[in-house]
């Protein structure tokens, strides 16, 4: 989990992460700022064509898209039910474009490459006190520890189940909170021990 990049290398893998992030950001900004159906249609076409042009396998693409597609369908249905099919199409086109491009990005880019690109992109913000290295480390830690926290939750849930506290949210949340805080302390020590100085 959280490293969903496809191992079979395509030309899209070779495009620098910074370029792909920039395209995603620009495309996202344009589709949410414009109402012009020709522009939107162009972006939808680009987003649909990109996985095909990059020869991305259908299976992984569909697995990433389906949950978002269900949400988009629900939103569109809601607008149609309100008698506003135009807005339904607009919402579907905007969200669909961004999600398809994001899927193409994550399937062809290492998480660390995205973090590095983001760090480089944030460099000018040093002058207003933002530390790109700290932001990068924060994102990497989030990527690293989400599966660890899932595993920890499963372990605690299992332990509470063994004690007959299966449905007790508090019995899972409290030990999870305590262990997460302790883990955060240990992690801070480990980072300091490896000569990290936040620069």
């Amino acid at each position, binding site marked *: 989990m959280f*490293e969903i990049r496809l191992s079979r290398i395509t030309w899209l893998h070779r495009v620098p992460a910074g370029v792909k992030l920039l395209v995603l950001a620009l495309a996202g900004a344009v589709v949410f700022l414009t109402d012009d159906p020709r522009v939107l249609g162009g972006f939808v076409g680009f987003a649909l064509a990109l996985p095909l042009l990059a020869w991305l396998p259908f299976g992984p693409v569909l697995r990433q898209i389906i949950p978002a597609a269900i949400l988009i369908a629900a939103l569109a249905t809601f607008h149609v039910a309100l008698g506003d099919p135009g807005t339904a199409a607009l919402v579907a086109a905007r969200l669909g474009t961004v999600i398809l491009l994001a899927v193409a990005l994550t399937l062809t880019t*290492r998480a*660390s490459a995205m973090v590095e690109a983001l760090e480089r992109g944030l460099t000018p913000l040093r002058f207003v006190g933002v530390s790109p290295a700290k932001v990068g480390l924060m994102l*990497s830690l989030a*990527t*690293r520890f989400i*599966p660890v926290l899932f*595993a920890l939750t499963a372990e605690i849930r299992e332990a509470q189940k063994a004690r007959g506290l299966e449905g007790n949210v508090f019995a899972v949340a409290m030990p999870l909170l305590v262990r997460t805080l302790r883990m955060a302390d240990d992690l801070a020590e480990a980072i300091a*021990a490896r*000569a990290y100085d936040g620069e």
Partner: protein
Amino acid sequence: MIEIDGVTQRFGDLTVLDLLTLTLTERRIAVVGANGSGKSTFARLLNGLIVPTEGEVRVDGLSTSREARAVRRKVGFVFQNPDNQIVYPLVEEDIAFGLKNLKLPKPEIAARVDAVLARYGMEELRQRSAHLLSGGQKQMLAISSVLVMDPAYVVFDEPTTLLDLRNKRRVARAIAELPQVAVVVSHDLEFLADFDRVLVFEDGRVVCDAPPAAAVPFYRDLMA
């Protein structure tokens, strides 16, 4: 040489280490003691993760209180639970983390990562997600991530506690083969036979400081 000079460590009202004075010059030093005896606090003092409430710890003349950053570059630290010290999602990224902090050039980082992966037979794991590794592999990753920084001293805080026997032996072998000075906090007395010196902690004091042949039986009697 590590010098512990009149060190007392308190956390609030609790005195964890009580007026400790030691000089560590041997290559293999073990630290044993019951839970809560102060051995993990002692280990953390050695690379400046904790600064003493009173007294001073010096590593090759550098004070952990005043020159903590320089000390941390000299003294590597391997924690008990590798899950809490692996920072990056992928194996090779985590090994490179400390080297980036040392501001080494990219080619040198790549060469050092390659070398340490080869040394511990982990080349095929380099692109693997850290959370998918076995317990033994995680501990070897944690050890590699510290050793790649080429510290002069390495402190291990119970590195084998969470491992099965095969992986305990693997980690013990890795420690035995280190060219560096190693200070190892451990409950695994069978791995201490080849150590030069064993410090037995009890209630924040060193109650026995001797080679394993004398210190291990002393500790067994203490725990009986």
